[in-house]
């Protein structure tokens, strides 16, 4: 187990270093999300009261689109010079690679959220009427839900034609319960009209189920030719 976590840290460090040098994912992701925020604020110009109700949906749809950009980049990095083959011929455990990718994506998307949230607050004049401390919990659980399946399906779409299009086609249907939970929980906290507890529990359950499933099945996907 220590070798898995050690290898995971090494892979994560390698990915972060590559990202800092090339800045492929983070730049496109940032600009893309900025565009989404601006376009959304043109398209929906509600009063502050109304906006509180729909903000949960807007925020998460923007994050979802931005996450897809990042997720497509993760494996693209491993496909250049076919470096993934070097991993596949080595005795290294496949789960270390998967977990490193998930954690890496989690970090990217979280950084992005930290930068985008102020923009949303400014454009929509948001303020939580419910228990605000729950928002980071929802964000963390929701982001994990997106990236754990997203990383898995991005690896899966490597083995298909037109892989960049395949990722959302696979990811979105499976993510519907998680998206519903994120949107509803965020809405509940912002409006303060009802409790977000159930949605947080649901998100946690979703994370546990799909993290375990991914760890079990990732080996199949990676070793598929």
């Amino acid at each position, binding site marked *: 187990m220590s070798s898995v976590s050690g290898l995971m840290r090494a892979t994560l460090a390698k990915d972060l*270093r*590559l990202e800092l040098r*090339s800045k492929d994912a983070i730049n496109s992701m940032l600009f893309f999300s900025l565009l989404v925020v601006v376009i959304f604020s043109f398209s929906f110009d509600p009063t502050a009261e109304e906006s509180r109700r729909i903000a949960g949906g807007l925020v998460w749809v923007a994050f979802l689109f931005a996450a897809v950009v990042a997720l497509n980049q993760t494996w693209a990095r491993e496909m250049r*010079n076919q470096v993934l*083959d070097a991993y*596949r011929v*080595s*005795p290294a455990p496949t789960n270390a690679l998967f977990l490193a990718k998930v954690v890496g994506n989690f970090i990217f998307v979280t950084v992005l959220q930290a930068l985008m949230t102020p923009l949303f607050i400014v454009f929509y004049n948001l303020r939580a009427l419910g228990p605000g401390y729950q928002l980071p919990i929802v964000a963390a659980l929701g982001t994990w839900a997106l990236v754990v399946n997203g990383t898995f399906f991005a690896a899966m779409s490597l083995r298909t034609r037109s892989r960049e299009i395949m990722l959302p086609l696979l990811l979105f249907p499976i993510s519907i319960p998680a998206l519903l939970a994120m949107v509803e929980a965020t809405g509940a906290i912002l409006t303060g009209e009802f409790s977000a507890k159930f949605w947080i529990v649901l998100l946690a359950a979703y994370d546990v189920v799909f993290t375990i499933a991914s760890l079990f099945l990732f080996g199949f996907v990676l070793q598929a030719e």
Partner: protein
Amino acid sequence: MPAAVIVTDLVKQFGRFAALRGVTAEFAPSRLYAILGDNGAGKTTLLRALAGLTPPTRGSISMLGTTDLRSVCGQLGYMAHPSLLYDEMSGMENLGYFARLYDVSNKDQRCAEVIGAVKLDPSLTRPVGQYSQGMRQRMSLARALLNDPKILLLDEPFSNVDLRSAREMVSLLTGLRDAGKTIFVVTHQAPLLEGAADEFVWMEAGQIISRTSDLAARLETP
């Protein structure tokens, strides 16, 4: 001495195209094999199958006495046509990461050692993406040597490498062979290996058509 690699009736098909059409062969340990043939003869597919990257459609591969390739992959070195290196990182950074995959002990020392073996400078901080093709090729070979493998699978190691460096690589390989490694080299530059390779294996249309210890013997009889 038992064979290092045994392949039995190996068939690999991509849809309706047969890349390997029943390859059966035994390869003894501590030998340097040159695998020759035209484009599309199945050389690369054979190498990828041996590396465990391409599961065969039919047939079996036994390596170091086992058919469970996953269990011996730590004793394999594989060099592909693409470099299998991260362009944005330096040679040492690249090898440092790959050494982790093989759980190499004394990793910095070992990385410097293999980089030295391919006549590159371990202190070079330039990212691999800015190397010349030949340097990248040699770094790629260094990567394959990292885990001190018993079996080396090299796909076109000499392409785009200047003659002097290629000769150096050949002498490195013969040294490794003499130290007990089994080496497979897929190449178009057969003359480079004349006198160095123990056997020349000729492939055509997915099959092994002849094996000679003398390069000239085969060249004269088409």
